[in-house]
């Protein structure tokens, strides 16, 4: 969900109408936007669509709003032929492909400048996955000499003054010293040669995907004509990006010129701004939306969506802008038509479907168990399923293995619980100042490895109860266990056992038939010390998977 900043005044200028913030809040819906914040002239717009980079600028938003009021149809972008040539001769495996455009006669003011910077940032970071797929540069055409070469060099041979720097440094130093080098240098790690742009006078213009040259790759407010390039791996992605950048310039009144890009003997003309074609039918669109649009009405809505539409036999031929890369299926056209129609102008329809609702059996059982436990005077608690090995094992004086997540945000939440008891101990530790006795329980999933299933792991529901007070005894907890199991009709026995979390001679395992179904006992003082608890604790934990299996068989 890219968030963009735009100037209210600038946006209205691009739309060609004066709109209040209230009006804009309604109209940005056409650009799948939501007006998040108004701060003087600055509007923060949240563009919902992560697959529509063409909307991530004031120009893109204005284009959609403009079209809805004017039924503009497809906007044609003229790209004039030129003699600008780029020769691609890169030996670097990093971003071997490039596309470019020349835009002339631009007038850069503060608002336009910030849109240029913002769109490049959004395209390379969000759409280009942190410059992994797209890196781009913009240059003052009057400071460089064509033809340009997109080539590569050993980093120590690359010497330039990077943007915002005062002295010339080499390619390795750029990665070490420049903030952008530190941020994106990993994209070049391991490559023998780094990609560079060089002009006919052998000036190094930039070192993609890191930084431009301060002397030859900088655009200021007085710049009138620019050269824009995108480098990467995938021509489909690069074409989308260059079309979006070209459209931004053209929408601000620039004249676009093509650039011939030579890959050895093969050459291509960029940008390719010719419209793309897709077919749908009016009946399909009506079926998905639930409307009865006529052909005429459909064409009107298509034109509001920046399409050209014409009926060809039973089908509709749609011509749509080159910068749209999201149209894969007729469905994508349906959405645009629905947005032009306005979601809020559609009458909601309540489908009368005859279906039978129901809860999962296990959910019902868990609920009944909670009922018995509250009847026994126990407070239900809830904890996270993520925890850490210190709580789960070390403080409980046991050894064990748990499913571990990679790169956890915090080491406090790094493994999945295999038992609920540590969570209840933590709860007691957090509530030492609260009146005793404290009787609490939790029902929840533990997550454990299981090589026999496709996900190599399974959720095992458990139920754990603890009592802590100045004086507690085994009978208090064993009678609770008995009350629970008797009231859900489960027969069980207790067998003297030993468990490192419990006092020797005061712990037993819970057997249902011959199956081990949990444990019960008085917590070992060493464990109490580990949790910094001062009152004794008795506890039991039962495995509900086994219990639920038995209940389901009834």
């Amino acid at each position: 969900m890219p968030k963009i900043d735009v100037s209210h005044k600038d946006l209205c200028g691009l739309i060609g109408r004066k709109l209040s913030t209230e009006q804009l809040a309604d109209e940005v819906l056409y650009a799948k936007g939501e007006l998040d914040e108004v701060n003087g002239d600055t509007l923060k717009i949240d563009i919902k669509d992560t697959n529509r980079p063409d909307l991530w600028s004031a120009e893109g938003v204005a284009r959609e709003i403009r079209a809805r009021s004017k039924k503009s149809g497809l906007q044609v972008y003229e790209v004039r032929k030129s003699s600008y040539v780029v020769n691609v001769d890169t030996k670097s495996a990093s971003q071997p492909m490039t596309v470019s455009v020349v835009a002339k006669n631009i007038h850069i003011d503060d608002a336009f400048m910030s849109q240029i910077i913002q769109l490049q940032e959004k395209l390379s970071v969000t759409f280009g996955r942190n410059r992994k797929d797209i890196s781009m540069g913009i240059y003052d055409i009057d400071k460089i000499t064509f033809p340009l070469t997109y080539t590569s060099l050993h980093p120590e041979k690359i010497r330039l003054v990077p943007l915002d720097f005062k002295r010339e440094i080499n390619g390795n130093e750029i990665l070490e010293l420049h903030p952008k080098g530190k941020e994106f240098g990993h994209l070049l790690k391991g490559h023998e040669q780094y990609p560079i742009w060089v002009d006919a006078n052998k000036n190094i213009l930039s070192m993609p995907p890191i930084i431009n040259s301060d002397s030859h790759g900088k655009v200021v407010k007085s710049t009138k004509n620019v050269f824009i390039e995108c480098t990467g791996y995938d021509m489909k992605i690069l074409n989308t990006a260059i079309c979006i950048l070209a459209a931004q310039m053209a929408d601000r009144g620039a004249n676009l010129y093509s650039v011939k890009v030579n890959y050895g003997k093969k050459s291509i003309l960029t940008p390719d701004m010719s419209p793309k074609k897709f077919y749908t039918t009016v009946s399909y669109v009506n079926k998905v939306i639930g409307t009865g649009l006529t052909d005429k009405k459909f064409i009107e809505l298509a034109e509001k969506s920046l399409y050209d539409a014409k009926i060809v036999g039973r089908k509709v031929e749609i011509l749509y802008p080159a910068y749209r890369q999201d149209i894969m299926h007729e469905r994508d056209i349906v959405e645009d038509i629905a947005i032009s129609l306005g979601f809020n102008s559609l009458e909601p329809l309540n489908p009368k479907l005859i279906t039978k609702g129901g809860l999962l059996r296990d959910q019902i059982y868990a609920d009944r168990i909670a009922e018995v436990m509250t009847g026994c005077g126990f407070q239900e608690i809830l904890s996270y399923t993520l925890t850490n090995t210190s709580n789960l094992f070390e403080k409980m004086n046991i050894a064990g293995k748990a499913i571990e997540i990679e790169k956890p945000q915090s080491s406090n939440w790094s493994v999945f619980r295999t038992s609920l008891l540590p969570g209840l101990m933590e709860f007691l530790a957090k509530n030492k100042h609260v009146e005793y006795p404290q009787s609490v329980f939790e029902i929840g999933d533990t997550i454990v490895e299981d090589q026999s299933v496709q996900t190599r792991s399974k959720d095992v529901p458990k139920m754990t109860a603890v009592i802590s007070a100045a004086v507690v005894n085994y009978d208090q907890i064993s009678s609770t266990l008995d009350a629970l199991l008797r009231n859900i009709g489960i027969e069980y026995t207790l067998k003297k056992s030993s468990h490192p979390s419990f006092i020797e001679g005061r712990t037993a395992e819970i057997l249902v038939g011959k199956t081990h179904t949990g444990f019960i006992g008085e917590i070992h003082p060493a464990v109490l010390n580990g949790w910094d608890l001062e009152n004794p604790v008795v506890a039991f934990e039962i495995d509900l998977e086994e219990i639920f299996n038995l209940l389901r068989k009834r």
Partner: protein
Amino acid sequence: MTYILTQEGKNYLKHGLPEKRLVELLKDRNGIQMNDAASALGKEFSIALQWCKKYKCIDVVNGKLILTNHENIKDVEDLQAGMELLSKGKEPINILILLSRKLAEKAGESIIERAEKFVGKEITNLNLEIIKTGTWKKVKIKPYNVEAVGKRQIGKRHPYNKFLQETRQKLVEMGFQEMTGPTIELEFWNFDALFQPQNHPSRGWTQTYSLVRPKDGLLPDKALVERVKAAHENGWRTGSTGWGYKWDPAKATKLMPRAHGTAMSARMLANKPKIPGKYFAISRCYRPDVIDATHGVEFNQTEGIVLDESLTLRSLLGILKEFALEFAGAEKVKFLPDYYPFTEPSVQMSAKHPKLGWVELGGAGIFREELTQPLGVNVPVIAWGLGIDRLAMFKLGIGDIRYLFSQNLDWLRKQVVV
């Protein structure tokens, strides 16, 4: 220590123990109606019946009393003999049994005598002697400070869990069947089956977790996997161009903590759902967000699907509107365009909550055909998600999402249950 017969003991010594009397009656009139026996024995009938059952000497069949084995009550003879001895001032060998049946008591300590001690005094506690003998008429009962407030703790459900339970119940009433799925999920179900391309930014580690161990699982049914692969690469038979990249099965076998409940919807679709069908799940989901007042790394998602040939975008709006009324008590709603990689069109709904004003209540969309058809579903499927946590926070009066999992016992104890 000397013992004497109680009033009851004296009575039985004279007339016979009730169980003995019942057996004697049945010896004469075996099979007598219970009512008749009761009137013959009077108020001692229930005691008689209780002991006869205990001795297993009678059966009750269709309201009739049948003598089975009168030999079984020979203990009665010992009691009778004991009472006789005691009446002559001798301590019988079975005195403890007589005491336990309240046929005998300590001499000089009759209930009346014990009660006598309280006459004319101020007492704090009422007791058996005072109540039974009527001595309460002759004592003064000390008043309590009845204005002192008593306090005790009770067992309660966790308020958030209770809220989720009520949500489940509402959805069931609306015809939704609950579904389930594993916490640790294959990327296949979390992403690929939902038509999210493998190079989509949301698959990077900054937004979802991966595991150190176990790392990889097994893909489901091969034919299904092939259809999903084809949908990604070229659209399969759906009329779509697909994403146009080479789909990598190795990526789909990666395991991850479920990032959204939609993974369960995908499993449901592939598992022969009913048509028409309505399904929902409330599930724990995991995303490496920065933990703050409105984001936790672990949170509950409420979402589901509706399947039917007749469904359209307008029915989607109708379903959302019903949710708004049901969950936020909101009559007024507004719909905004939204984006999910797996639905098209996608809608976000804001509802006018009576107290909160406009709240973003949920999102929904119609699943793309590239998603539904490879999973074997050929009717429109509406997918919806509800942001009920926000309503839960409001209902429970809390401003911090972490408090939904409150670990504060004092707060939990103070929560009211209605």
